């Protein structure tokens, strides 16, 4: 029996459940390796070669090379693992989050300073 996913009607959100954790296992473990300065340097020197050391899918590797965080998440990435990529790039959580919303960095920052994204219309799919 497939597990119940009562969270599947939350808009714009991927819950990191068993299915995602299995799909993204090697992508996320690759991210963990970037907590080591020597490995960060090797990754920076030749990203493609470094990624090829990991049994990741081509789609996962390309999403990393493109720094497309929504695509990484759809292929099983989790934000706390993926953080190792953008932190190594010298980016912040704010910049990475902004990149996933389609807003420019300044627009996103302004939205947060104005109180953040409103829950109104954002709690159930199809209500906005």
């Amino acid at each position, binding site marked *: 029996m497939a597990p119940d996913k009562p969270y599947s009607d939350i808009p714009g959100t991927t819950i990191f459940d068993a299915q995602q954790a299995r799909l993204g296992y090697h992508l996320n473990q690759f991210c963990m390796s970037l907590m080591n300065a020597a490995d960060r340097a090797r990754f920076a020197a030749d990203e493609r070669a470094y990624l090829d050391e990991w049994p990741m899918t081509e789609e996962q590797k390309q999403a990393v090379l493109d720094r497309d965080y929504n695509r990484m998440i759809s292929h099983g990435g989790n*934000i706390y693992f993926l953080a190792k990529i953008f932190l190594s790039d010298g980016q912040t959580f704010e910049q990475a989050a902004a990149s996933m*919303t389609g807003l420019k960095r300044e627009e996103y920052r302004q939205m947060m300073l104005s109180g953040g994204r409103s*829950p109104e219309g954002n709690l159930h799919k199809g209500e906005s």
Partner: protein
Amino acid sequence: MARITAGVATSHVPAIGAAIDQGMTGTDYWAPLFRGYEFSKQWIAKSKPDVVFLVYNDHATAFGLDLFPTFALGCGEEFKPADEGWGPRPVPIVKGHPDLAWHITQSVIQDDFDLTVINEMDVDHGLTVPLSLMFGQPEAWPCRIIPFAVNVVVYPPPSGQRCYNLGKAIRRAIESFDEDLNVHIWGTGGMSHQLQGPRAGLINKEWDNAFLDQIVANPRGLAAKPHLEYVREAGSEGIELVMWLIMRGALDDEVVQRHRFYHVPASNTAVGHLILENSSQVEEI
């Protein structure tokens, strides 16, 4: 005997740590947040805990997908600040309290909560940012700290009810430790935030403030709140708030609220902060 005198709840946003480390606490963006912790620093200087039992979550730092415990207690002598991708934070090494930690492990497991014991791990912003907020930038942390890590990264995390009941078991454990210690229990993480996907940036002030009301006045009712409500209303990463229920479960049913603070934003996140004292430990109310 050891006694729990107080609970502290606070968010643990990494950007707060970066602002402290880079000397930016006085900027227009950050000053309003740090003003909310001025009372707290004075309060803790007077309260002088011997030990902080610090409930937090590891953010894919010590635990990857190869192994991640639901509840893990740090029994080691010390824990170093982790390199999360840009080098370790310049903060002191965390000194544990192995005698008390092992005592709690033994007591809580015999009380039917199966914990994982950790003797060696590095601690990430989830643990070090609350210490910086409460203690500032000392040469060494002024007390022993027992790290208690909860999985809230991979679904499902433990339920609010499980966390609340575990808090009660932790209290029984601490209060049966045969040494005169002033112990604080801290619950960290939250409040509303979502760091991923097109809904990133969600903030739900009304929900957060109701949570702050309820965790003080009606924690039993709050413990029954299902996961789905946290992730829907407070964002996918807002689920961290279940950890506050471990702190609350370890306190008296009746507490004295010394401080409450709420601020938006810190980076992507709503910051919430409470200081609660156990009614049974308060001499003058």
